[in-house]
């Protein structure tokens, strides 16, 4: 009996959560903000506090049937409406339909004289009235710290804020209280003291002139939560947090192999292509055709009817389409068919985290089975950050079973550069493209540095970018090393000559043997003829002697009979 009641007891005690409807944030908090409790949202100016809070209200009213009150201490209602309209939020409609109440609390220090004891009951009355008028379940106070500028007696204020948060809890509304980041503490006036259930910190850091927005759940009483800093995006599609939660390596793997788009390369890999869901790195010098390999792969995937997403960091969509058509890879039809999508952006447009967040969101939106990043070496910065970014990008792809192809530009003379070294261990297949310079010309060579789980070719292969795509040619590997291009052709010609000479020699020997055989056979025939002749002669002599012998015998018998002797 006891055992049966226990789980239900635990369930009733477990913290209920209010989903924010903000992509990613609900994942990080495992369900949303603590229901019926205030949450502190703090960050420096321009971090997106107001926007995040407003999104919480609007999503609540629109998607979860929970009305909301937005109590603004800074911006007027009309300003708020205009500000969020740029993100596609129809705040005015929700206000008109009485799903959201916006109350602007305006405090002008200069207009107020303090005389004797007071409290903030007026704020309570207003809030209470606003909540009750629409039956609100969600409340935002943005930012309640503005009160500190309006009143001189901070002792009263603090006591009243404490009372306010307790009152909000009692009221059972899920509240977001925003606060400006202060020195050495989360908020300027230390209101985190009063809001202790859940604290979310927003950050907008500038490094090397590039800003990255980050979000961190500092504390969440009574619940597990993601503890990292997660990048988040604010753009025309609203606000989205992109947690990279797959720290484990538990992703499903596939035995299926998919074509690289280059027949010769398929054969080299020994499995007719890359494994589905694997990560592929193609590194090489400038002009070795890294992007072409990527495009060939995309082309093959699109022909199979799979969706592809190409993140281009160096060329624009049109430029890539034009350039690839010169080597017989036509991407335009795939774009028109909706199978191929380009996301082109300069690496310096955002920080790594933002790029990652953006790529993550694009991958989620488009749901491709093939992702190509061209090139990862475009990211410049501390190798630790590049590594972190790429590891997580590779993880994002792997967990979704997406085959990811990364290209990387390596510096001349260096075996691998920073970005390659940092990702090499992540990659399942690594194809190196090389330039071979000899005899006054450059030729392209391809080799497989590694390919996990495949019995791949270890050979260096020459390849050419032809009108019909990439073509692999057997490279000549002789005592003098690898010969390519015209040197290979010359060597091949020399070999042909040598083999001709050898063939002729053999023919000559054959003729000699035939001649010898003929002469020997002739001699044998002569000797045999001689033998026959001699035999005939001897036989004749034998016959003559036998005939003589008979004659002698006859003669003797005749003589004997003549002498009259009886036989």
């Amino acid at each position, binding site marked *: 009996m006891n055992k049966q009641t226990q789980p239900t007891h635990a369930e009733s005690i477990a913290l209920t959560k209010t989903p924010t409807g903000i992509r990613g944030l609900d994942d990080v908090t495992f369900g949303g903000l603590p229901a019926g409790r205030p949450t502190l949202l703090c960050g420096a100016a321009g971090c997106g506090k107001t926007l995040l809070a407003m999104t919480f209200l609007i999503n609540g009213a629109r998607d979860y049937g929970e009305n909301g009150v937005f109590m603004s201490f800074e911006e007027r209602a009309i300003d708020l409406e205009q500000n969020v309209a740029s993100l596609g939020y129809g705040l005015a409609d929700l206000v008109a339909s009485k799903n959201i109440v916006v*109350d602007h*609390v*305006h*405090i002008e220090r200069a*207009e*107020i*004289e*303090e*005389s*004797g*004891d*007071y*409290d*903030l*009951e*007026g*704020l*309570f*009355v*207003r809030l*209470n*009235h606003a909540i009750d008028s629409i039956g609100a379940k969600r409340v935002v106070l943005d930012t309640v710290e503005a*009160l500190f500028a*309006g*009143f001189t007696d901070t002792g009263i204020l603090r006591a009243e804020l404490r009372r306010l948060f307790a009152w909000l809890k009692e009221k059972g509304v899920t509240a977001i209280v925003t606060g400006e980041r202060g020195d050495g503490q989360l908020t300027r006036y230390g209101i985190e003291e009063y809001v202790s259930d859940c604290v979310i910190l927003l950050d907008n850091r500038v490094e090397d002139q590039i800003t990255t927005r980050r979000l961190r759940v500092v504390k969440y009483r009574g619940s597990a939560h993601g503890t990292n800093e997660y990048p988040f995006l604010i753009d025309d599609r609203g606000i989205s947090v992109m947690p990279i939660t797959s720290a484990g390596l538990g992703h499903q793997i596939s035995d299926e192999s998919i074509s690289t788009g280059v027949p010769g390369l398929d054969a080299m890999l020994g499995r007719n292509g890359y494994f589905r869901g694997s990560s592929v790195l193609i590194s090489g010098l400038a002009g070795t055709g890294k992007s072409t390999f990527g495009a060939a792969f995309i082309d093959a995937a699109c022909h199979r009817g799979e969706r592809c997403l190409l993140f281009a960091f160096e060329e624009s969509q049109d430029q890539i389409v034009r350039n690839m058509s010169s080597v017989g890879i036509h991407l335009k039809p795939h774009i028109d068919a909706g199978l191929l999508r380009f996301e082109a952006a300069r690496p310096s447009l955002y920080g790594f985290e933002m790029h990652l967040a953006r790529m993550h969101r694009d991958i989620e939106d488009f749901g491709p089975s093939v992702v190509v990043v061209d090139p990862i070496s475009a990211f410049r910065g501390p190798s630790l950050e590049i590594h972190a970014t790429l590891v997580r990008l590779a993880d994002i792809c792997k967990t979704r079973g997406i085959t990811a192809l990364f290209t990387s530009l390596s510096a001349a003379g260096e075996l691998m550069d920073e970005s390659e070294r940092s990702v090499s261990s992540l990659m399942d297949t690594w194809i190196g493209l090389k330039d071979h310079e000899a005899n006054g010309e450059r030729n392209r060579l391809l080799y497989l540095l590694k390919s996990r789980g495949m019995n791949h070719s270890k050979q260096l292969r020459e390849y050419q970018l032809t009108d019909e795509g990439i073509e692999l040619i057997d490279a000549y590997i002789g005592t003098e090393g690898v010969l390519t291009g015209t040197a290979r052709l010359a060597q091949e010609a020399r070999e042909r000559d040598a083999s001709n000479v050898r063939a002729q020699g053999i023919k000559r020997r054959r003729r000699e043997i035939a001649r010898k055989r003929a002469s020997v056979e002739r001699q044998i025939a002569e000797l045999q003829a001689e033998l026959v002749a001699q035999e005939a002669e001897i036989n004749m002599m034998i016959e003559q002697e036998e005939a003589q012998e008979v004659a002698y015998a006859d003669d003797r018998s005749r003589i004997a009979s003549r002498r009259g002797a009886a036989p």
Partner: protein
Amino acid sequence: MTNELGESQMSSDKASVDISDFTDSGDYNLRLYVAGQTPKSLAAIANLKHICETYLAGRYTIEVIDLLVTPTLAAGDQIVALPTLVRRLPPPLKRVIGNLADTERLLVGLDIRPKGFKSP
């Protein structure tokens, strides 16, 4: 929106002021916001009455608004702290918050000169 709270006490004051006097800049139209009959509210009403009788005898009207009864009025006059005294007339709008125990501050807040001088 006069509350029963102070009605009887102020009816005499009100009667002594002619309507036409409101246009005169010397007349004070005061509104006191409170929430229920808390000690603070009662103190504020008593203090206000005392000051007005002392300095503005016959030149003022007081409206006491209980926000527990009419919460919708709080937003209109931007009431946050309570009690709040709002000087609606003469312009400009002035606010004094607190139980009005500090007479000096109240007079400064309402722009009342002790000798009956009007603000310029």
